[in-house]
């Protein structure tokens, strides 16, 4: 007998087949479970999308695409438009990214390139814990601590020094508003960008950095000339993930944005985002029209979130494909 052991081995016939069939059943069960779990995710996504579209349909047929540009929202008069909330969402998310991207990259650079191993081991997890703070707690803090501070100090200061820019208008009376919401969102987005960019910087090959160092580059020149460009597309993808987070955040924003009904240029005024308006009014929604319009807001939010997510994936994929293709 010189056939390969795996085929005609030394096990007696039925023992062999018992082992095999047990294996086969195990394989099958595992396969089934995993597929089911994946299917569940897809079905859930479909069910949610269906419910949101279905819930919004009355509002969609009544207001059409004009809903996007119309900025008045007066449920009592049957007037609905998403303009104010689109504006609030765009402004707060954009401002949050504007602050969080440089902050997050700096933290990432510090943790990956500059900090000693011990400091790294302490600060890294702490930054990640920032992301673990429940948003409702962050919102509380925004109301109780941040708001009064902004109102008393930061807003007057910005108005005094940069008041010629319309976005820094007269300070608010409460501390609630677009500005506060932007800063709270920044706090939420920074850990995402910081930890992702730290990992990206750590992944830049040591050999490339040494190559640049051996060419008479200073540390900063190595960072700027080799590390940052190598990680750039990854960091952009991280920023889009952060954007997704900022766009969809409802609770904390509701707590600090002031639930305003009008578009204001000044960041110190109140406003509302798509997500915060839904969180604010869905519970007490009295008319089917209001419910449908809130669903419509949700649909818009879903589409925007989807776009941000796809953008992040597209950048990440292009980045990888580009590297593989170049090999």
């Amino acid at each position, binding site marked *: 007998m010189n056939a390969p052991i795996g085929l005609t081995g030394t096990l007696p016939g039925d023992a062999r087949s018992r082992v095999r069939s047990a294996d086969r059943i195990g394989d099958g069960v595992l396969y089934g479970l995993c597929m089911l779990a994946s299917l569940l995710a897809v079905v859930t996504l479909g069910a949610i999308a269906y419910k949101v579209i279905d819930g919004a349909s009355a509002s969609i047929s009544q207001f059409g695409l004009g809903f996007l540009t119309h900025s008045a929202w007066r449920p009592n008069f049957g007037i609905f438009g998403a303009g104010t909330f689109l504006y609030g969402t765009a402004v707060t998310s954009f401002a949050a990214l504007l602050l969080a991207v440089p902050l997050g990259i700096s933290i990432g650079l510090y943790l990956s390139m500059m900090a000693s191993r011990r400091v790294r081991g302490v600060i890294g997890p702490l930054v990640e814990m920032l992301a673990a703070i429940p948003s409702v707690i962050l919102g509380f803090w925004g109301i109780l601590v941040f708001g009064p501070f902004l109102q008393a100090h930061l807003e007057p200061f910005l108005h005094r020094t940069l008041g010629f820019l319309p976005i820094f208008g007269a300070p608010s009376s409460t501390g609630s508003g677009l500005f506060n919401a932007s800063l709270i969102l920044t706090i939420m987005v920074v850990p995402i960008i910081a930890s992702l960019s730290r990992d990206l910087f750590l992944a830049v090959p040591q*050999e490339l950095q040494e190559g640049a160092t*051996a060419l008479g580059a200073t540390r900063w020149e190595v960072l700027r000339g080799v590390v940052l460009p190598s990680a750039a597309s990854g960091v952009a993808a991280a920023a889009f993930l952060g954007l997704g987070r900022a766009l969809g955040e409802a609770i904390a924003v509701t707590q600090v944005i002031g639930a305003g009904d009008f578009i204001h240029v000044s960041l110190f005024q109140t406003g509302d985002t798509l997500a915060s308006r839904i969180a604010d009014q869905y519970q007490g929604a009295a008319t089917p029209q209001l419910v449908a319009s809130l669903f419509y807001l949700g649909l818009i939010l879903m589409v925007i979130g989807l776009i941000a997510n796809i953008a992040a994936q597209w950048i990440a994929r292009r980045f990888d494909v580009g590297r593989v293709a170049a090999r």
Partner: protein
Amino acid sequence: MRPPDPSEMPATGASNVRPRVRIQTPALAHEAAQAAANARPTDALRGSPRGEQDSALTVGREAIFDVQDLSVSYGSSQAISGVTLQIHRNLITAIIGPSGCGKTTFIRSLNRMNDSVPGFTIDGKILYHGHDIYDRGVDRVEVRRRIGMVFQRPNPFPKSIYDNVAWAPRNLKMKSGLDERVERALRGAALWDEVKDRLKDSALGLSGGQQQRLCIARAIAIQPDVLLLDEPASALDPIATAAIEELMQTLKNRYTIVIVTHNMQQAARVADRTAFFNLDASDGRRTGVLVEYGDTDVMFTRPADTRTSDYVTGRFG
């Protein structure tokens, strides 16, 4: 020619002698030190082997590096100890020896590439044109600008061929005549004809041998004084290796070259001088030491130390 050697003036009694001694085994070092002390007046008899004697190659040649009693440790483990040698202008100096004997450690010490390694400490002196490159106040970035390095694995930047070569000149603000500079460097690295039509293509699309020559072009684009090559051909096939070896022969007219190699034939083919490092395990720890240093033909045909002859004839290592 070379400026007065500062280490000979203030140093402690022992190290006055030690830098000149070739045999590093502690037991022998003592005898050798005495022998050296006795033999002081006659250079030819001093200490052990031939490395010390001026050969026809080194006589009248400026020593670019004068390494004196160099010891390097990573944390508590010593990688090399008591290395003393001179590296001469426009020669190719090969560093050979078994794995782990500190060849990489040695040449990375020559341009301060080890500075960022945690636990790295250095003892002794490395004089470069008479200046200790580890002196306080020495700008290590400037050291690396003048002493270029090519690594074992080709490490081009993920940029175009042109941008790879132009990277360092741009960075060092040598921007005038950049195109000519890039062309000169690529010609210097014998790569120009192969890439002149695709300078804008990614460097990662080149073959391994081409990438390595690109790294050489990148290094010579800023006109260094010395080129350090750490096993530059170990990842390459024989044809690409031959191209690199041929290239080195032309490069040595303009640069002083130090090459680490595992390949005995390669050292015999390309190097003017050869230094043999070995692992010394006599006191229980394994430390790299310089066994013998001299003209390549002497090292390969009639070495003074049996360890050298064993190694170069392939009897061990």
